[in-house]
């Protein structure tokens, strides 16, 4: 089965080509139907590969063919199946199928409906191809392709200026990270002579990664951090997280698929994929842990006060990605991936439920909603499941994965990170239930919008229900119930125990975590459901903190002041150099030719006899040269 894993990425590619051939006028049902069926087939293939690996852990394999030979080095293309890859394939194809189905309802009657599905198919192909890449170069190619698809889909409604700006911003900010990744890949190639993971890891773990200007240990750390810079750009880690909230300008299914479940998880996947390199350099791992921790807290703090429902969930995504990075950073490889797995489901669920709400009331402002629970029963319940999962309430999926990470921070001795994680967990429970109560409970704050609110058709509710079920049970894949199947599965990639540690369950900690989550939920209920505590008064009393959070710690402004201004300054200097120095030279050359032409035109008298005289004397001179200088005509 494993040798057919290439079908998983290729099926969406077939879909993409087919939709391209159908053109922009194709019927919605046909477009969505073909896409859903192909992605579902891709999901079945992924599932088959996943289970085949589970049954026989040693059938992992690399299938490549020679692409280029550069001197002594060669570059291959192909695909590779490991336990990590198989898990990612399942997550990506599962969420894609559901999002494809949901989009049928959400994008109904959009003018560019077929184009939307084309982009989505291209994205799913790129993402899956990224996951199964056997070497860093191929990964980088598809890494850029998912970035491109993200850009296209954020800017899908390009006629909205904010969407066009957000698309540009996401592209440029992730590009900053990609530069780091690219430098890292080149350094790894130069020092190990290959793009292949196995060769690179072999060199890194045995200390053979070396260049003349740097010690092997430093080089390992440097490349690890550079790779992490790329991962941070893609996974919206501090300080490169600013693009993700703006990316919410795209259609909501895009936010669910790309900016919650899959593409942003590519950074986490990359760190997991390159884990032996990070383990070889403890420093790089510490950087990952701390950046992840800071991101988790920062995202949660900002999410507390946002008014836009999608932005709250976007900051929540940033925060949860921070958790995953932190998990990887403290050595809990399996737990980071476990959280990626559960998060993909419950965050896609939250986004799709939010999309269902937005579809119904046509606003994203939390304070224009309220009381929607009565009209949208399914959306309310599924959102509640997602929220409980995100908050980490027993026994929802998020509880198991988040608690594993928190447990790992504690047991590996990262006390500060442990407290950061607990504070962030409290904020998480609070902000997501703030959204829940503001949206579904209380009195409608905008009657006109409420009036036409209604539940979507089955294509929208079925994915919600499936995801809600997954948000409930996904955590059970890694519990005592199945003898921690997922972590055993993932750890099978490296029997030597090179890739991180696992820890036994810590029941007192679980109780603490659930209590923290429940206190957060309770506080949210007291403020937004049964308003015992006035949110306005609290905001006024803590106005400094409130404004800090509401204005996203002024990071956008700081970036605008520092990065954008510096960029503009450099661009200005380069522009001046280009315009007034390089162009001057070019213009002078042009002017020279022009002047020559103008001068010589006066010789064109049109008098044949004049021409002949000149030709005659010219021949004479040539003959004279031939006779006296060269020594004869013949």
């Amino acid at each position, binding site marked *: 089965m494993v040798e057919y894993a290439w079908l998983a990425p290729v099926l969406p590619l077939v879909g993409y080509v087919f939709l391209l051939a159908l053109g922009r006028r194709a019927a919605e049902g046909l477009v969505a139907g073909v896409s859903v069926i192909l992605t579902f087939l891709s999901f079945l293939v992924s599932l088959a590969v996943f289970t085949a690996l589970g049954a026989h852990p040693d059938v992992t394999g690399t299938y490549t063919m020679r692409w280029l030979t550069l001197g002594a080095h060669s570059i291959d293309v192909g695909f590779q199946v490991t336990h990590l890859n198989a898990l990612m394939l399942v997550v990506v194809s599962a969420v894609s199928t559901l999002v494809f189905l949901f989009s049928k309802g959400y994008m109904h009657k959009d003018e560019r409906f077929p184009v939307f599905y084309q982009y989505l198919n291209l994205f799913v192909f790129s993402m899956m191809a990224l996951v199964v890449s056997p070497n860093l170069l191929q990964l980088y190619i598809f890494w850029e392709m998912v970035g491109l698809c993200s850009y296209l889909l954020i800017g899908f409604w390009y006629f909205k200026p904010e969407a066009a700006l957000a698309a540009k911003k996401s592209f440029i900010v992730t590009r900053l990270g990609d530069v780091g990744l690219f430098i890292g890949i080149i350094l790894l190639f130069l020092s190990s002579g290959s793009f292949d993971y196995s060769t690179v890891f072999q060199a890194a773990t045995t200390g053979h990664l070396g260049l003349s200007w740097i010690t092997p240990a430093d080089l390992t750390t440097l490349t690890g951090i550079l790779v992490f810079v790329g991962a941070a750009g893609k996974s919206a880690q501090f300080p490169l997280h600013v693009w993700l909230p703006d990316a919410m300008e795209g259609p909501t299914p895009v936010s669910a698929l790309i900016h919650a479940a899959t593409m942003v998880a590519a950074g986490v996947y990359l760190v997991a994929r390159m884990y032996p390199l990070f383990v070889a350099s403890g420093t790089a791992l510490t950087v990952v842990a701390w950046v992840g921790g800071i991101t988790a807290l920062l995202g949660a703090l900002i999410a507390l006060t946002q008014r836009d429902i999608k932005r709250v969930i976007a900051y929540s995504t940033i925060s949860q990605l921070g958790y995953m990075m932190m998990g990887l950073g403290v050595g809990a490889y399996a737990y980071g991936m476990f959280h990626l797995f559960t998060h993909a489901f419950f965050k896609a669920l939250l986004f799709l439920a939010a999309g269902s709400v937005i579809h119904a009331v046509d606003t994203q402002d939390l304070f224009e909603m309220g009381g929607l629970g009565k009209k949208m029963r399914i959306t309310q319940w599924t959102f509640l499941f997602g929220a409980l999962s995100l908050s980490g309430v027993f026994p929802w999926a998020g509880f198991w994965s988040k608690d594993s990470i928190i447990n790992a921070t504690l047991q590996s001795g990262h006390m500060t990170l442990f407290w950061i994680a607990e504070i962030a967990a409290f904020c998480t429970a609070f902000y997501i239930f703030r959204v829940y109560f503001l949206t579904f409970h209380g009195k409608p704050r905008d009657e006109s919008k409420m009036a036409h609110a209604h539940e979507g058709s089955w294509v929208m509710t079925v994915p919600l229900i499936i995801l809600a079920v997954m948000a409930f049970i996904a955590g059970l894949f890694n519990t005592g119930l199945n003898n921690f199947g997922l972590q055993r599965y993932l750890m099978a990639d490296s029997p030597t125990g090179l890739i991180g540690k696992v820890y036994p369950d810590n029941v007192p900690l679980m109780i603490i975590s659930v209590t923290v989550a429940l206190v957060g939920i309770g506080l949210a209920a007291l403020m937004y459901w049964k308003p015992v505590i006035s949110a306005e008064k609290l905001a006024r009393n803590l106005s400094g903190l409130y404004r800090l959070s509401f204005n996203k710690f002024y990071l956008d402004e700081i970036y605008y002041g520092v990065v954008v201004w510096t960029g503009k300054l450099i661009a200005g200097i380069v522009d001046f150099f280009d315009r007034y120095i390089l162009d001057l030279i070019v213009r002078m050359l042009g002017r020279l030719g022009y002047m020559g032409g103008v001068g010589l*035109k*006066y010789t*064109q*008298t*049109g*008098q*044949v*006899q004049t021409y*002949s*005289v000149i030709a*005659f004397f010219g021949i004479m001179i040539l003959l004279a040269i031939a006779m006296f200088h060269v020594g004869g005509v013949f």
Partner: protein
Amino acid sequence: MTGLGGPLFPIPTGSLLALGALLFCIGLFGALTRKNLIIVLVSIELMLNAANINLVTFSRLGVNPSLSGQVFSLFTITVAAAEIAVGLALLLAIFRLRRSSEVQDLNVHKW
């Protein structure tokens, strides 16, 4: 140094070449300086004939003197006749168009 059948008047080769050169120079001068197109055409004929004289003269020389030079000059005369016919036809056409046969007036290629 005799041609086929021997010379009627034994003119030295140098004189013949000098005649050719002289004719050529006169023709060239005429072609470059005369204002009337007909005279220019006549001058061109002069240059052609100078070349013919050279051809005939050189046919006397060489290890194997032969008639080929003279035959060649006959061809040249034929071609020249055709050429002058075309030339005169062009001249007539130009004259009809511009009411002038002055070389200076033919300056449509002036900048």
